[in-house]
């Protein structure tokens, strides 16, 4: 269903992403933005919309929004203003949302997404605008009470929210998901947002339609549908896959094209795996935007931009390139590492620096550290083996003290016990096996297994595997590869 070369249409997708900024306090008052507090405990007259209350802009929120926009390569407006978006809803206590309408603080940016495995061609997605607004509260429908009552929690009301609107530049659900991952990574790297979808700090709506070439050469465009209620990037992909198929089927049945009806909004039903049309009433709104008279124009000067820029850390795209050139690792490896977050990259660089080798460090990161993290859960900050400790282990492997599979056992023990490599090695009685020991061991094995020797001599080399297990029992420190190699050599020497 993706825009594969065989699909009889092109899928056109644009996204609208809302991201809560990681500020300590709300956008227009001093209330905390901490998630999870008891309902209506982080509120004041301003975010409750009480009569006479006034908003005052949080400079820190504006600076964070500037950081996001700069990272998205946007043009920053020298002057920007606030507007009121008017609508009635119980979780919107003022009856309007302070937002930005015709003069957003930034516009015309782009963010590229690259799949290192080449699942799709690199896609540079245009950003139409990024603007800042206040979040609404939360309505919770009290099903348990059975009265149809709705409870309102205004803790979230007034939390700073960046709205990022893309051009319709994405061409498949897979690309959309990958791009969202890239966006999230960027915003988390820059400390703009924690992008936690479960806590609602990142929300996505998607616009989608199909361009279908006609026999006469004309391109038929299906009506644009906006999809809402998607709770994960996986849902976004699934919803877009579903909607692509639904629109193509609808096209075949109705031949309805864009403009024949107003833009439709459909909600994603995760359990059912389908999108459902929402009531027409919810679709048409006149928000009666007008300039917010309680706030003044915001001007952004070069000095302020420079300050924001200098406070910014390397974004993921640059970090990937930096890792490739610094540690001579592949684009794929660098992508995997960078996608795990800045802390993991820090661990990797420390490890690579300690052993003086990027590729080996990268392999250990991907095969051992990441796998262990996935199994155990938790973050790299709390990982029981330090980069220095792991470097010590790897150096012993390089020195030939033991082989990699034995090293993995030691690593597992280091993770569980939190002890050092040297300590684990000493306790387990691990020591290097020298050539004489190996030779003696192999002779013993051959003498004790005439059947295996005969099989091998008869051409069944795989029978030698039976010797390895026995070798391990005799001496846990032996290298299985070397045992196999030496035994075969001795058997061949028998002629």
């Amino acid at each position, binding site marked *: 269903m993706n825009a594969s070369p065989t699909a009889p249409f092109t899928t056109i997708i644009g996204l609208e992403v809302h991201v809560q900024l990681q500020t300590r306090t709300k956008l227009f008052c001093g209330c905390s933005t901490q998630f999870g507090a008891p309902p209506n405990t982080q509120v004041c*007259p301003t975010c*409750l*919309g*009480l*009569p*006479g*209350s*006034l*908003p*005052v*802009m949080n400079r820190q929120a504006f600076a964070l929004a500037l950081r996001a926009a700069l990272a998205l390569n946007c043009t920053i407006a020298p002057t920007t203003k606030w507007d*009121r978006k*008017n609508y*009635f809803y*119980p979780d919107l*206590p*003022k*009856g*309007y949302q302070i937002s930005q309408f015709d003069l957003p603080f930034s516009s015309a940016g782009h963010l590229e997404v690259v799949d290192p495995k080449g699942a799709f061609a690199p896609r540079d997605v245009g950003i139409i605008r990024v603007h800042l607004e206040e979040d609404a509260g939360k309505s919770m429908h009290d099903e348990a009470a059975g009265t*149809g009552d*709705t409870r*309102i929690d205004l803790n979230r009301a007034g939390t700073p929210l960046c709205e990022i609107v893309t051009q319709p530049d994405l061409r498949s659900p897979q690309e959309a998901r990958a791009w969202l991952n890239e966006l999230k990574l960027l915003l988390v790297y820059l400390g703009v947002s924690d992008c936690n979808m479960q806590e609602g700090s990142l929300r996505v709506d998607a616009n989608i339609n199909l361009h279908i070439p006609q026999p006469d050469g004309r391109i038929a465009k299906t009506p644009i549908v906006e999809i809402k209620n998607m709770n994960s990037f996986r849902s976004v992909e699934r919803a877009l896959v579903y909607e692509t198929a639904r629109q193509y089927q609808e096209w075949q049945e109705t031949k309805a094209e864009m403009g024949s009806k107003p833009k439709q909004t459909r909600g994603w039903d995760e359990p059912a795996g389908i999108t459902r049309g929402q009531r027409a*009433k919810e679709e048409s709104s*006149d928000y*009666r*935007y*007008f300039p917010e*008279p*309680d*706030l*003044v124009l915001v001007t952004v000067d070069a000095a302020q931009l420079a300050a924001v820029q200098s406070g910014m850390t390397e974004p993921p795209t640059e970090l990937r390139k930096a890792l490739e050139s610094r540690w001579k690792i592949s684009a794929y490896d660098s992508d995997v590492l960078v996608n795990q977050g800045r802390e993991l990259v820090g661990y990797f660089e420390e490890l690579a620096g300690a052993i003086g080798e990027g590729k080996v460090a990268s392999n250990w990161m991907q095969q051992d550290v990441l796998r262990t993290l996935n199994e155990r859960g938790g973050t790299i900050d709390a990982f029981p083996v330090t980069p220095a400790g792991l470097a010590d282990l790897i150096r012993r492997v390089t020195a030939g003290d033991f082989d990699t599979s034995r090293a993995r056992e030691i690593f597992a023990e280091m993770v569980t016990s939190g002890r050092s490599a040297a300590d684990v090695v000493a306790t387990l009685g691990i020591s290097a096996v020298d050539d004489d020991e190996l030779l003696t061991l192999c002779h013993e094995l051959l003498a004790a297994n005439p059947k295996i020797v005969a099989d091998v001599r008869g051409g069944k080399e795989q029978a030698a595997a039976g010797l390895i297990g026995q070798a391990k029992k005799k001496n846990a420190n032996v290298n299985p590869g070397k045992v196999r190699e030496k035994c075969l050599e001795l058997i061949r020497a028998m002629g």
Partner: protein
Amino acid sequence: MQPAELTAIDIVTAVRQGDLTAVQCTLAFLQRIEAHNGSINAFLHVDAAGALATAERIDKRRSQGLPIGPLAGLPVAVKDAICTADQPTTCASKMLAHFRPPYDAEVVARLRAADAVIVGKTNMDEFAMGGSNENSAFGPVRNPWDVTRAPGGSSGGSAACVAADMAPVAIGSDTGGSIRQPAGLCGITGLKPTYGRVSRRGLVAFASSLDQIGPMARSAADCALIMETIAGHDPGDATSLTGGVPRYSTQLDQPLAGVRIGRVPEHFAAGLDPEVARGVEEAFAVFKAAGATVHDIQLPHAKYGVPTYYLIAPCEASSNLARYDGAHYGHRATRRDEEGHRATRRDEEGHGTAPHTPGAFESPLVEMYCRSRAEGFGPEVKRRIMLGTYALSAGYYDAYYAKALRVRRLIRQDYLNAFEQVDLIGGPVSATAAFKLGEKTNDPLAMYLVDLYTVTANLAGVGGISFPCGFTKSGLPIGFQLQAPALGEGLLLRATDRFQHLTAWHQRRPKSIPSAGPAGR
């Protein structure tokens, strides 16, 4: 002299010197309120206990030799659109009839910090929308000079309580003339400061870009005293002006030689009552005698002031009043299933202003919104919400709101041009003296024209002051208005103070205020 006849300056001086206690003074005004509020209906709420407790605290501090504030012992009445944590704040609306804010407005906090005594909350047009105080949900205010007449509005209660000696000072708010016009019709002095000079935080918003709080008192000198306390930057109001506050009261006693006062010939065109015109011209003569010069000037776009105002103010109001939806606080319509338990079927169908037809609302929520707002707001508030909602709607915005903003810029430019030629602009406050209650209530357009001479100052953001400059033959005050460039409060107060040294109009008092009359609330 009775304390209730003293000026604010006399009161704070007497309290500081120990000639009068704060309690004596507060009691004197509470007695005046007790005697006359029934006929004037200036106060919606009187906090006698709270005021006396404050007064006692001040007297105790003074007797212990502890420092007391610059307004120590001064009773102050506050318009009911300004939040007070210890008293209701209703905006004279059924919508907020039982609303008690959890916080003090910035002006109230400053007054309290200066040891003023907040005696009560004054009546007004509902949500400050009106020019006669007849739009109060709790009954009109009556003009102390003639109780069959309107006191003007929307700060009608604040003006009337000062005129009737029920408070030496009141705080009002002015969106299109709501301090100056009632001050003019009640024969007192009212100052609308430059937009942003006094914090709006805690003033229940009507039209945010026009609203401004100011003092109403018996003289410019008293207004100057209050301004020193309430003016100044508030970091909690983004539109509040920075910059220091002059010691207005020390700058008063100066001659007016060299001060140029502009006179707008159009102000004297048809529509201006001849008696008012005569009073205003006589005031110009007084200023000339005081050394000022008078020059005819033009404000070419002033004629568009009222229509411009009646687009911008309702647009902002329609948004500012959206929060009164019954969901969080304020009036909420009773649920119909609850009503069913109490009311008979006939009652249910017979009452209420919202349609009761089943299915008339798209959801119970929308029904609650519609019925709460239909029941909670009065007709003028509804009219302005509808005007503003319409003018901001898609397809109309450019023709109405955007155009009004452009005209507003032209009006502001007119003022800038005029103030290159003159230091002040003088003229009438309103076209007539106080009109009869009910005279304009059925003609909203006639009522809107009472703002003719005052709205342009709000649109331009400049300050204005009004004060009595004579009386009609029937004994009603005639008001004079002065306007100054931004932050020109010092000159407004100085010029008015000079005028009040040369005339005695501001010292006249209504002869006999009925002590019992039509009940208020």
